[in-house]
């Protein structure tokens, strides 16, 4: 393992985010705050408790997940897309680093950033609503696994995309709808039985549910199902990434 190289890639990626710290940190914080103002404070006061907690507290885990998914995907996809776009990726491809080390540097940095953002949003949320965390370690585990998995997904998108449109297509057309329909703002018990069944095909439901379980000890599906889905997701993302590097897809003609 070439630790010096991994560290270099990681630090370079992290400092790239620092250069755009405003966009990286302020904007997710602001948008999350807006969600709380609109859903938590304005609408939430008219909704009674959901599954035993106040509506404001109920949406906290979902909102963090929403932010975590979108930020992980966009950070990681931009991170690898830019060097491809500018051509400066030649240096990484000609360096004595393994593919695993490249992924570790890029995805590690993107995931770190997402986890930090997740914690910042958590802190922001606590200013708006009181809530408690029943299983802090499980909460952290979910935070890290989700950030890692979706950063990998973002990395894949950043390699697949051959233009800025495609780079934004997947987050816009897939990630955002799945998250909004993933039980961020509601418990799937509230849906008619047919839509409950359909919703169970949405992987984000398992993430939000598991994450919510770590806060309040209850979720739409069992915690094991949640862990299983995130594990499956992680494994398949890893498989795709390793195929990309072995075949040189979009990286080496």
């Amino acid at each position: 393992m070439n630790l010096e190289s991994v560290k270099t890639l990681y630090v370079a990626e992290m400092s790239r985010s620092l250069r755009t710290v405003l966009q990286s940190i302020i904007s997710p914080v602001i948008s999350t705050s807006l969600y709380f103002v609109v859903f938590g404070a304005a609408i939430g006061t008219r909704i009674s408790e959901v599954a035993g907690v106040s509506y404001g507290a109920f949406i906290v885990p979902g909102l963090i997940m929403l932010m975590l998914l979108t930020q992980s995907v966009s950070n990681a996809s931009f991170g690898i897309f830019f060097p491809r776009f500018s051509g400066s990726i030649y240096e990484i491809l000609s360096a004595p680093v393994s593919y695993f080390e490249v992924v570790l540097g890029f995805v590690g940095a993107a995931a770190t950033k997402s986890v930090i953002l997740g914690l910042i949003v958590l802190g922001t949320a606590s200013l708006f609503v009181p809530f408690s965390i029943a299983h802090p370690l499980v909460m952290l585990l979910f935070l890290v696994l989700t950030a890692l998995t979706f950063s990998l997904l973002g990395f894949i998108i950043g390699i697949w995309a051959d233009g800025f449109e495609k780079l934004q297509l997947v987050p816009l057309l897939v990630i955002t709808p799945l998250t909004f329909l993933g039980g961020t703002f509601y418990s799937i018990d509230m849906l008619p039985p047919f839509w409950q069944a359909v919703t169970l095909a949405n992987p984000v439901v398992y993430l939000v549910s598991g994450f919510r379980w770590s806060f309040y000890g209850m979720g739409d599906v069992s915690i094991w199902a949640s862990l299983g889905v995130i594990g499956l997701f992680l494994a398949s993302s890893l498989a795709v990434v390793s195929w990309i590097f072995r075949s040189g897809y979009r990286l080496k003609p």
Partner: protein
Amino acid sequence: MNEHNVIRVEALSKTYDSGFQALKDIDLDIRHGEIFALLGPNGAGKTTLISVICGLVNASSGRVRVAGHDNVVDYRQARRLIGLVPQELTSEAFSTVWDTVSFSRGLFGKPKDPAHIERVLTSLSLWDKRRNRLITLSGGMKRRVLIAKALAHEPEILFLDEPTAGVDVELRRDMWEVVRGLRERGVTIILTTHYIEEAEEMADRIGVIRAGELVLVEEKRELMRKLGRKQLTLQLREPLERLPDSLDASRLTLADDGQALIYTYDARTNGDDDPSGIAELLAELDAAGIHFKDLHTRQSSLEEIFVNLVREAP
């Protein structure tokens, strides 16, 4: 491993996904410590060849060894030795000169060494610009940065893909200064260029690539010997059917239906009074009763050799 051949390219072919064959069965040995110039017209395959050696493009068949290491199997050992300055100007627009050059060193797994980075930047007249963002630099300055990046990890082999394209005279001089310094330290240098004078000035050996085929690899001195060859053409008053026996047929040919006599000689021969042998020839012609109405001389240049090689139908 052959100590003298730091790079061995064997039966290398590359066909791009488009179906275009950019390299055809290339065999090439680069010797340790030499400056090798790769010449060829646009689209000949120079960049493709370099890219395969450096690991940016997958070969379709054949193999490359760098200091004995297969560049696919032992890519780490092979790539550690190589620095690459690409043809296209590419950069992380927003980072500074210092950061991007230090990044290159770290990426290649070398521990931090600010003194080395400083030396590299100074040798390329970049020291004053170290805090500038790349986006604020001119094209020539960006090219220097790319060279600095390639040298940041102290490579033993340096590839320069058209280093002087779009570069002013001063930078060109700077650059050759750096290249000579590297060579003195035993760094092997492979450069591509369209400028023949450049190859002439810098290279130890010259390779010419045309339509994916390596058509010539030769010592520069050998080529210069060909370059040094001159021709004297005499327009005769009376056409000759054959050369008189009194003349040296090995250096004379009849052309133009016997109307012209061509004398080939080496302009560099170090004779005393008559190095070219022209005076002697003229005396002999006079003695043989051959008279001429006009004469001219011309030099067959490397450029000419090159153009002929490149134009030849495949």
